[in-house]
């Protein structure tokens, strides 16, 4: 008898405590993939900033590229009784069970940046960018910039077969289709890296009459663009003038290049996935408002008109 | 080509050649039901080749195998096994991570409704093993039991599978005395059941304790098959080593009085489990011949002297000064050289040229930076190729293309180039042709005359007698006797090697 009473009391206290915590702001668990890229590091720091801004207590877990670590972290969050969980899933499959556990514990889960192959009722919403749109925005910028002039484009692709490479290529091609003055003359993979971007661009420059025939370079990410810019300079041409440079991601170094007049445009893949996620969560907690299932972040275009030096300074500290 | 009517397994005219090397030459052997038949011979005698042929692991070049009078040929060990020939090796070849009963029944599990009937399997396994005096939990992993138990399980499996001929290849090598006794009981029981048992061992005591007949092979040839009651230990040793007492030893080349001062002095120098503490003085200008059967500790002593193994007791002094030998490098620094028993494995650098092989030890002594120029190397190599009459088309030929005898001379040249004081030669004439053989014996004598100290290990007793100033006989990992002067003859050496077993019998 006595024991049961004590248990009941404990449960009552626990309920009280959690209610009090909710009143002071939510506690949110965040299972991050790792820190495999600068963008990922920036996402982590922006998420922390966003949480702090809103008075949310963030519990952070780095999965070091392993799904098992993520599942462990999520179970830990459930055991701790957090109010919500953010997950940037390292792979798309194998989430049903652990997401089911979260649902059973009535903890809403928000997916960041990548989707999963699981029934949609297992998570509240997912926040991600639209990669096809990113490519399209880059393409539209080029179409607008060159007008009717003929323009031979060289493309530095991401890793062969990767989703962003496929989507960003598709979006760009959609944007330039119907503009026969713009053609993709060469397209090779630079593996999303600076070194390979530089090497591939060196090859393109040799193959296209020392670069004189190239009107623009489109890179699937800024890192490859930065490498490509160096190659263009080494070939004695002026990046940004002799060859237009447009890329995707909006990392600090591309703003530095833009400030130096060596890059012309970048499309932002925002590291701020957590902002919209927290907005949705707060609305949901407050009055149970179901957010949209797929929240698409903005794919904002930046050009030298957007104060690149200022953007560089603002982003430098984010861990890119 | 006698036809043994009682033989279960009879092999006639077995010949097997590897390349140009004849491993077995026209060997006849027959195993009878209800006998334990010991197969003896030193390394390279052809025992394992014969066993591999009888169990289907090797094909034979010539000869016939009859099982129960029917001519058979095995393409694989599985066929031999199915026809009734089971083998148990020294290293138990079962599956240590599976249970005892799985090991007994793997591939032939009792089934019930198409599924493995584990209950029945357990019951039967228990019954089978109790027949071997073994009462153990057959559901436990095999690896949880001692080697002796594993050995018995292996025997039980082999008998159950085959049941006519059981070949035991050095089954007692890693067993203690009580375990050996237990194993012998089992073997006697199997013999009583009418199995033919082939027993391979190096221990003469065990041969006489267990066997009914013994067959000796030497250099791939059948020396003879005898009933154990018709033969004594000394005769067996003679058969194994190929010594005829009637053959008188050659002249004794070195009188002990001629030898120089002490170069290497061993006091209680030994390594537990390998070599019992040794006391020996080795003088300049003397050849110490080392005789003993395989496993007597002769190679182990050489390894200890050269620092391949490190002694854990006693002292060694070189030129009157205490020395520490923890590696071949230490030994080389003291002016030692070593021609190992296994030339191919430990001696030659097969792909490197004769020149490089010859200069290697000298260059190792000089170190990384004082490199011999190519001209210097050519000169050194050329000198020794001439001095030792190394037959090679060119000093630049990869040494692996040379004959065994010439390879041995290259290794010898390698050490002579370092101007050594003390050479250890382990079986320097094994597996080399007659001509090169004689030359190496001559070189040994010449080096002794030049004042080198030499320790020469050899199974060729005639040879040992011909060049040794003294002969050390090893037995059971210790020096059993030292023979001087007139005692240095083949008969005396053979007696000394065999004597221990005679003593043990008394």
């Amino acid at each position, binding site marked *: 008898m006595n024991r049961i009473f004590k248990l009941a009391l404990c449960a009552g206290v626990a309920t009280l405590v959690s209610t009090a915590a909710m009143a002071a702001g939510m506690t949110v668990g965040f299972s991050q993939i790792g820190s495999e890229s600068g963008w990922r590091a920036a996402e982590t720091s922006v998420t922390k900033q966003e949480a702090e801004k809103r008075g949310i207590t963030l519990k952070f877990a780095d999965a070091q590229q392993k799904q098992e670590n993520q599942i462990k972290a999520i179970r830990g969050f459930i055991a701790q009784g957090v109010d919500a969980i953010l997950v940037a899933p390292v792979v798309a499959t194998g989430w049903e069970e652990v997401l089911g556990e979260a649902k059973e514990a009535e903890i809403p889960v928000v997916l960041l940046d990548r989707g999963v192959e699981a029934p949609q009722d297992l998570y509240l919403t997912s926040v991600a960018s639209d990669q096809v749109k990113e490519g399209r925005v880059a393409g539209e910028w080029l179409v607008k910039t060159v007008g009717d002039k003929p323009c031979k484009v060289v493309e530095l692709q991401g890793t062969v077969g990767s989703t962003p490479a496929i989507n960003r290529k598709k979006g760009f091609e959609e944007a330039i289709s119907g503009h026969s003055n713009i053609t993709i003359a060469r397209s090779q993979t630079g593996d999303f890296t600076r*070194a390979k971007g530089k090497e591939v661009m*060196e*090859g*393109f420059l040799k193959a296209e009459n020392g670069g004189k025939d190239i009107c623009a370079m489109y890179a699937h990410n800024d890192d490859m663009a930065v490498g490509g810019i160096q190659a263009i300079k080494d*070939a004695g041409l002026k990046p940004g003038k002799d060859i237009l440079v447009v890329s995707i991601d909006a990392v600090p170094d591309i703003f530095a290049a833009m400030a130096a007049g060596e890059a012309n445009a970048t499309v932002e893949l925002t590291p701020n996935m957590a902002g919209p996620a927290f907005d949705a969560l707060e609305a949901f907690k407050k009055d149970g408002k179901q957010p949209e299932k797929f929240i698409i972040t903005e794919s904002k275009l930046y050009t030298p008109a957007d104060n690149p030096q200022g953007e560089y300074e603002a982003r430098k500290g984010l861990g890119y | 080509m006698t036809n043994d009517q009682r033989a279960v397994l009879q092999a006639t005219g077995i010949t097997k050649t590897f390349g140009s090397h004849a491993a077995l030459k026209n060997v006849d052997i027959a195993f009878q039901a209800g006998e334990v038949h010991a197969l003896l011979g030193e390394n390279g005698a052809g025992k394992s080749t014969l066993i591999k042929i009888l169990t289907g692991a090797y094909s034979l070049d010539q000869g016939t195998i009859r099982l129960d009078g029917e001519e058979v040929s095995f393409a694989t060990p599985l066929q031999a096994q199915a026809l009734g020939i089971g083998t148990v090796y020294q290293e138990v070849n079962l599956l240590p991570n599976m249970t005892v009963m799985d090991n007994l029944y793997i591939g032939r599990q009792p089934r019930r409704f198409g599924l493995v009937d584990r209950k029945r399997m357990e019951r039967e396994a228990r019954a089978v093993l109790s027949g071997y005096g073994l009462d153990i939990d057959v559901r436990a992993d095999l690896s949880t039991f001692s080697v002796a138990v594993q050995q018995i399980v292996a025997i039980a499996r082999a008998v159950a599978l085959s049941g006519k001929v059981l070949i035991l290849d050095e089954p007692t090598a890693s067993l203690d005395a009580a375990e050996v006794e237990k194993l012998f009981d089992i073997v006697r029981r199997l013999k009583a059941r009418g199995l033919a048992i082939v027993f391979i061992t190096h221990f003469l005591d065990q041969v006489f304790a267990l066997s009914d007949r013994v067959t000796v092979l030497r250099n791939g040839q059948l020396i003879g098959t005898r009933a154990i009651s018709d033969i004594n230990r000394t005769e067996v040793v003679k058969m194994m080593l190929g010594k005829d007492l009637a053959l008188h030893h050659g002249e004794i080349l070195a009188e002990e009085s001629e030898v120089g001062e002490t170069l290497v002095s061993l006091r209680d120098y030994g390594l537990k489990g390998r070599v019992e503490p040794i006391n020996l003085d080795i003088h300049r200008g003397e050849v110490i011949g080392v005789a003993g059967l395989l496993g007597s500790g002769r190679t182990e002593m050489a390894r200890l002297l050269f620092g391949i193994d490190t002694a854990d007791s006693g002292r060694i002094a070189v030129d009157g000064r205490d020395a520490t030998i923890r590696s071949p490098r230490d030994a080389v620094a003291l002016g030692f050289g070593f021609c190992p028993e296994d030339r191919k494995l430990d001696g030659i*650098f097969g792909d490197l040229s004769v020149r490089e092989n010859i200069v290697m030890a000298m260059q190792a002594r000089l170190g990384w930076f004082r490199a011999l120029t190519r001209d210097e190397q050519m000169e050194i190599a050329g000198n020794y190729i001439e001095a030792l009459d190394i037959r090679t088309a060119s000093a630049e030929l990869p040494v692996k293309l040379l004959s065994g005898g010439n390879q041995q001379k290259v290794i010898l040249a390698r050490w002579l180039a370092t101007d050594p004081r003390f050479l250890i030669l382990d079986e320097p004439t094994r597996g080399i042709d007659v001509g090169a053989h004689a030359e190496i014996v001559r070189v040994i004598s010449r080096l002794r005359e030049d004042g080198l100290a030499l320790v020469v290990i050899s199974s060729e007793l005639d040879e040992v007698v011909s060049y040794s100033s003294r002969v050390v006989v090893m037995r059971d990992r210790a020096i059993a006797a030292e023979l001087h002067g007139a005692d240095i003859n083949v008969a005396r050496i053979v007696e000394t090697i065999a004597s221990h077993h005679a003593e043990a019998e008394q």
Partner: protein
Amino acid sequence: MRAQSLSHLFSHQVIALAGVLLINWMVFPGFFDVTWKDGRLFGSLIDVINRGAPVAILAIGMTPIIATRGVDLSVGAVMAVAGAVAATFTVAGHPLVVTLAAALAVAIACGLWNGLLIAFLGIQPFVATLVLMVAGRGLAQLITEGSIVTFSDPALIFIGTGSLLGLPMPAVIALLLMLGAHLFVRRTAMGLFIEAIGTNRSAATYTGLRSRSLILAIYAFGGFCAGVAGIIAAADIRGADANNAGLWLELDAILAVVIGGTSLLGGRFSIPLSVLGAIIIQAMNTGILVSGFPPEFNLIVKAGVIMIILILQSARLGEIVAAIRTKNPLGRKTP
């Protein structure tokens, strides 16, 4: 005999390189155009030696290792570590000498670590170096905190992008390193000892060779080479990219050594031929870039060409060809 067999090998690599270059010229006629631009040579051929330099340098270090029957899988990761150290040091304001010394010291330490595991603890080289292959990249990420550490010290950048007598610095460094290493192993007894250990480790020990120290030394040298390659790779892009610098280059380096005729089973080796192997690989890479093939074919084309090269230099094929020539198939004795 030896000179003969080496010249025999040499011809294989030269033929392979000539073949690859010829194909490059066929798919891109401007391949051999070299012009003088801003005080340096400019052209696809120059790209080949410039881009091939890091792998060539790795191959210089990998050759003695493979010749002793070892392998170093960690060189790519060590490149990343060295690049990360160099970048953080230069960003922290240290002078070039200190930066280079620190990066190379860390790289050599990595090599020594591998050598210790292999020579003294007797761990299989494949496993021992796998440890650092994984951990090294993690270490590099730790140093750079996951981001690309960019720098602007012109002296450091010069190592990756400058030129000497019109030739790109990386190529100059690779060439000097190759000559230095080659002369060192052949003028000292090192080369002989390495080949001895690779041919028969047991016999080497019995002969009184210091096998362990030698193995330690060559893994340290492998680390040093990886360090040099890492500094070049970082200087080339003016930043240390811990995630991608040197990624999978250990495999290219091993391939270069194998194309160069050193057997994975140890023994005879040639550093210049390994460098030639690296150049062959890069000639192929550059050829693919200028050819305009879709990138989906990159790996297949590469694999195909490498297969042809390796088949051409296989000993067995030589025997078969010789047998066919003497009309005595597969060397069977005629009755």
